[in-house]
């Protein structure tokens, strides 16, 4: 592998580790232990080599600038001298072998947790960049030292050409240390994932990584991911946060999801979080906490639109535009009088098609399908199936509207029985 100064060459980390380091006169200096990269760049450049100097016990590092050749052996000029003790990693620096090789990473494009078999580097002129992470079987065989044998075997036995399975570095989120997760790049990458995928990934990680990943998320992403996470793991994640941070995240969630989590937490912890929360939201959540979990009262959300019958379609649209952000659903507008008696319902479709001056009282459907607070989930599921609704309002004995059950909340209850 002769390297001319202007060529581009692909290298694997496994080929560089353990290589002999010599100076321009051919005197042996030591052997390569690890590579240091500056992780802030899109394609991190190798900045230094961690090496074990000849006849020394502890590792040292020297700058990448000194490397003139990296073919059969690493040639350095001027001769290697330790620039800094090995322990000192600078801000935004990462040791490739130490924190990536054999460790778990998140592939943010494929939304999967994978294990790193090798790292793929590109040498352009004198610089070496990390470009891919190798997670494939061929990479594993290369590490074992059987790459050629595996290639030949697959070709001969299955007539299958074994290919590399690379993931571009920009889709890779390393997980091995909390410091890596605090980097700006990390947060951007993880928030690219769909909350449901992010939740799946969080569930699959071990306890320490789970907490580290979760705490690295911004409040909004954390809340979205938390809503999709398994209830037992939700509790664990929240328990590990201080009440202030926990309340910030829970405030971002829908009141019914928030109540679900708080209901599962130990009492003192839940009360501590409620105290930190914004008053209005805390009141809503406390009310939901009063209801048994598998009945209508426990499934409903209190963030839904109600308007008086004399409001016009235009006013209703204005209302949705202003308040919709904070509501769990806007598929239906519920029409109620001053005492909150449920009078009728207007679907979003009706509202969009109506002329702006029409009064809600005139256009509403009075044949409202509603359920009582204590209705069982099976009954509610039957209503959804029979009437084909996206949401069902919940009322008390005197027909006061208390909340609305979105179809999604019910789906979470019945989905396990659908053979998910």
């Amino acid at each position: 592998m002769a390297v001319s100064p202007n060529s581009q060459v692909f290298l694997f980390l496994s080929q560089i580790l353990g290589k002999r380091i010599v100076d321009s006169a051919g005197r042996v200096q030591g052997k390569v232990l690890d590579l240091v990269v500056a992780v802030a760049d899109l394609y991190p450049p190798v900045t230094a080599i961690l090496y074990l100097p000849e006849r020394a016990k502890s590792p040292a590092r020297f700058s990448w600038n000194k490397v003139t050749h990296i073919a059969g052996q690493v040639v350095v000029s001027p001769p290697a001298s330790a620039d800094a003790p090995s322990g000192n990693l600078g801000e935004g620096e990462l040791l490739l072998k130490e924190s990536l090789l054999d460790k778990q990473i998140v592939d943010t494009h494929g939304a999967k947790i994978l294990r790193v078999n090798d790292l793929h580097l590109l040498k352009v002129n004198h610089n070496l960049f990390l470009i891919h992470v190798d997670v494939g079987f061929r990479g594993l065989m290369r590490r074992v030292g059987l790459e050629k044998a595996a290639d030949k075997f697959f070709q001969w036995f299955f007539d299958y050409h074994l290919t590399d399975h690379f993931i571009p570095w920009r889709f890779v989120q390393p997980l091995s240390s909390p410091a890596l997760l605090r980097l700006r790049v990390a947060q951007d990458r993880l928030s690219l994932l769909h909350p449901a995928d992010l939740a799946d990934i969080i569930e699959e990680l071990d306890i320490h990584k789970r907490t580290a990943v979760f705490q690295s998320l911004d409040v909004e992403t954390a809340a979205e991911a938390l809503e999709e996470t398994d209830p037992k793991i939700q509790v664990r994640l929240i328990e590990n946060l201080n009440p202030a941070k926990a309340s910030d995240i829970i405030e971002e969630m829908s009141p019914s999801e928030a109540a679900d989590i708080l209901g599962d937490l130990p009492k003192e912890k839940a009360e501590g979080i409620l105290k930190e929360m914004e008053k209005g939201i805390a009141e809503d959540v406390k009310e939901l906490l009063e209801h048994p979990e598998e009945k209508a009262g426990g499934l409903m959300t209190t963030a839904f639109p109600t308007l008086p019958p004399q409001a016009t379609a235009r006013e209703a649209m204005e209302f949705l535009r202003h308040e919709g952000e904070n509501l769990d659903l806007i598929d239906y507008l519920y029409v109620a009088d001053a005492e909150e008696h449920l009078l009728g319902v207007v679907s979003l479709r009706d509202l969009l098609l109506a002329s702006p001056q029409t009064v809600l009282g005139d256009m509403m459907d009075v044949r409202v399908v509603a359920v009582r607070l204590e209705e069982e989930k099976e009954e509610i599921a039957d209503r959804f199936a029979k009437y084909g609704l996206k949401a069902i309002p919940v009322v008390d004995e005197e027909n006061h509207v208390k909340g609305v059950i979105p179809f999604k909340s019910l789906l979470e209850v019945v989905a396990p029985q659908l053979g998910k």
Partner: protein
Amino acid sequence: MVSNGSSTPPIPLGTSGERGKEIPRKGFWKTLAVFFALFGPGIITSNVDNDAGGITTYSLAGSEFGLSLLWTLIPITLALIVIQEMCARMGVVSGKGLSDLIRERFGARATFYLMIALFLTNLGNAVSNFAGVAASMEIFGVSKYLSVPLSAFFVWWLVVKGSYKSVEKAFLVACLFYISYIVSGFMVNPDWGEITAQFLNPTVEFTPQYLTLAVGVVGTTIAPWMQFYLQSSVVDKGLKPDDYQYARMDVVFGSIIVNIVAFFIILLCAVTIHQAGIQIETAKDAALALAPLAGKYCTWLFAFGLLNASLFAASILPLSTAYTICEAFGWESSVNRKFAEAPQFYGLYSIMIILGAVVILFPDVPLIPIMFYSQVINGVLLPVILTFMLILVNDRRIMGKFTNGWALNLISLITIAVLIFLSGAMIITAIL
């Protein structure tokens, strides 16, 4: 989910514990309740340990040497507790499985060869368990051409089509059936005075047969796969360092149970088959020899115990192997995923069951050599894994303040040294 606001809020349990179960808050009952919510991994692991190979070895030990090998169960129990405790602790503290830790600490190459060895030895165990199913069902008059395919399909279906929770429950119930050996033990009215004397005055015969069986008893009780399985189950349960005392109780309890069952099997064969001077070669021989000596119910109980043990181990072992290997290589591994989502996991699991079952169905398969080589790999693998474990459990970066103390390290080192010696001795005597 929203709680109904009753006076005691539910205490969140581990990830696969029963959710929302309310637990009394104080004293003994609380401890007991938490224990039952968190127990399982240690007890299941220990009971799978008494698989067809184990029962065969114990039967042979009892029928050839009477009560004289009984005392070995005491050091074995201690060693088992020490080793399993380290696994449980690593699982609780690191939140990672053993193969995960080995891969991250020792790299791809060591892990690769370790996993191949583990696969081969566990494949041998799978074969011996289907042989156990065949043997026990033949005592009940069922042909192996019926019992083996049916049981293979059953264990495959249980995991591939069931959910982990139902699988775990089924396994916990299966643990109860080991009582059949204890019942059989009492049915033959042993001489308790002599048994106590044997424990107080341990004797060693320096004959090759005696040593081979002693090594066999140790080897079948402390197996490589158990460490992986136990640690993964502890991680799966999602135990926290605060719950660690319960995990340890679970491990101690399980290790004692496994040896109580072993005790009764050796006892049963010692006071019946050994005293009558009958030569046996398999667990099936043992069961059949019991009929004229202790009554046909005793035979049935023995055969039933063997069937249960074989089925139990035949489903857990392939599962544990697939799980361990996938974890090491970063492949999707979960009984909660579909076949297409985790092809390597289900592929490995299915291959082990199919191969294990098919081998038994061929009329002229050399079972004894297969078992033998599987035991040899077992013997080579175990010291390697224990050494890796000892390095890992003393690594502060992984274990923090939960590393081994010097006393525990000393006991572990002695255990490992004895195991290396015994494994080496067995391999050498077997080859000569």
